[in-house]
């Protein structure tokens, strides 16, 4: 079985896990992620019958969540490649389930009994789960990025939003980065040439996790961050999770209405920013699908390079 480790980062093949939101609501993330990966020599393979990662059902029935995650891991294991996700909640959910299944023999046995009886599947525990951004956040890839940057983005001041499940709980990620002071997204932004804006509540949650339960609470959470970013006059916010996007872009208009304010803050997925730096056209990066217009932002880049 081919499997990646931190010590062997040159390998560049992954199975891509899309989850529920990306392939339906965040095509611009998927398009740009695939485009940029191809550009940098990362190969992403598809498994059409992947289902939900299991995360939404964790609060209802924990074992059902583990089984749903295990089903996806079992399908990935057939491919023999590490799994990389675009959604941070999928990453957290699959990493945690994987961790538990790998570390608990009794649980692994029970899960495999049910997987085999109900679905004819088996999961040995040999798959590594990672986030698409982690696949980019390797020294070799970052060096490649720096070498291949063609467009000068230094006029752009963009704000990284790490979200939660990309870094926490840090135990399941073997504390790859300090959950109180993560650096990877800042570094990846700097690798594109753009400036990474620091702002109050940088690590705050988007509120997406409570959107279904209490919309006003979720909107209030997202509103605070949008306010802080306006103070910093950031050109855009950079995301790595489709659920954070639902809060900051999908609900931006609604927040503007509820709080009688105006942001018009462009929200980009990191691979869109990276793609612009690599010289790809905005259209190739699905920028037309961004709900908050990015025309001014693109103009600003062109003004600098013309």
């Amino acid at each position, binding site marked *: 079985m081919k499997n990646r480790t931190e010590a062997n980062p040159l390998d560049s093949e992954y199975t891509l896990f*899309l989850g*529920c*939101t990306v*392939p*339906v*609501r965040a*095509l611009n993330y*998927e*398009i740009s992620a*695939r485009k940029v990966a191809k550009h940098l020599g990362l190969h992403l393979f*598809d498994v*059409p*019958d992947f*289902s*939900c990662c299991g995360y*939404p*059902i*964790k*609060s*209802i*029935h*924990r*074992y*059902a969540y583990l*089984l*749903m995650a295990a*089903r996806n891991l079992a399908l990935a294991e057939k491919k023999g490649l590490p799994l990389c996700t675009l959604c941070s909640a999928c990453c957290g959910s699959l990493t945690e389930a994987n961790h538990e299944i790998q570390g608990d023999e009794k649980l692994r046995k029970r899960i495999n009994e*049910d997987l085999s009886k*109900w*679905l004819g599947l088996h999961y040995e525990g040999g798959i590594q789960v990672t986030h698409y951004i982690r696949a980019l956040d390797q020294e070799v890839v970052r060096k490649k990025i720096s070498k291949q940057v063609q467009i000068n983005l230094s006029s752009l001041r963009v704000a990284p939003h790490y979200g*939660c*499940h990309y870094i*926490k*709980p*840090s135990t399941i990620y073997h504390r790859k980065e300090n*959950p*109180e002071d993560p650096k990877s997204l800042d570094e990846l932004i700097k690798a594109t040439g753009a400036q990474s804006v620091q702002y109050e509540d940088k*690590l*705050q*949650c988007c*509120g*997406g*996790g*409570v959107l*279904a*339960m*209490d919309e006003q*609470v*979720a909107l*209030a*959470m997202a509103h*605070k961050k949008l306010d802080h970013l306006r103070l910093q006059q950031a050109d855009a916010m950079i995301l790595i999770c489709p659920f954070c996007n639902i809060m900051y872009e999908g609900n931006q208009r609604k927040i503007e209405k509820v709080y009688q304010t105006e942001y018009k803050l462009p929200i980009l997925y990191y691979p869109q920013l990276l793609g612009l730096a690599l010289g790809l056209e905005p259209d190739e990066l*699905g920028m037309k699908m961004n709900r908050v217009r990015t025309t001014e932002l693109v103009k600003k880049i062109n003004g600098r390079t013309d």
Partner: protein
Amino acid sequence: MKNNEPYLIIKSMIDSKTFDPNFKFLIASEPGGENIKKCFSCGTCTAGCPVREVTEHYNPRRIIRMAILGMKKEVLSSLFIWLCSSCYTCFERCPQNVKIPELMNAIKNIAVREGYLPSSMKSQLDLLASFGRLLEVTDFENEKRKESNLPLLQGRTEDSKKILSNLGLHREEQDRG
């Protein structure tokens, strides 16, 4: 679930005779709830909680204290347990490793078994059983994907339904679409 006051507000003195002293043991035996008894109510969780920052209805320290006291019905029936956004800030900071998001999850799993399943969660469950995903992939979505040169997705998967049905979480008549 009928609930006029979704987030419990205690207006009068609580009566210890109504407490269920076994509640904390029930939680501790649920996966994720193991460390509940280690909580010494320091409030680090609440101090850094982004939900608490915008609403008084969610206060993890208070919920844990109520659970340890044995206020079983109050805790399980209030929607406040469903307000944790699972950001894991408290998980990282708790000096007693109470793993609060996992603990809330354990409490929610118990609440569901006791018949307290919020309607929005019930909808998610039905969607997962019917489509294997939270968002249905129809020909329309696949057409859009085709236009963008993205690989097509399988419309629905029966596997999720099999898992949920076998665990008693879904019945045929609850199918959607």
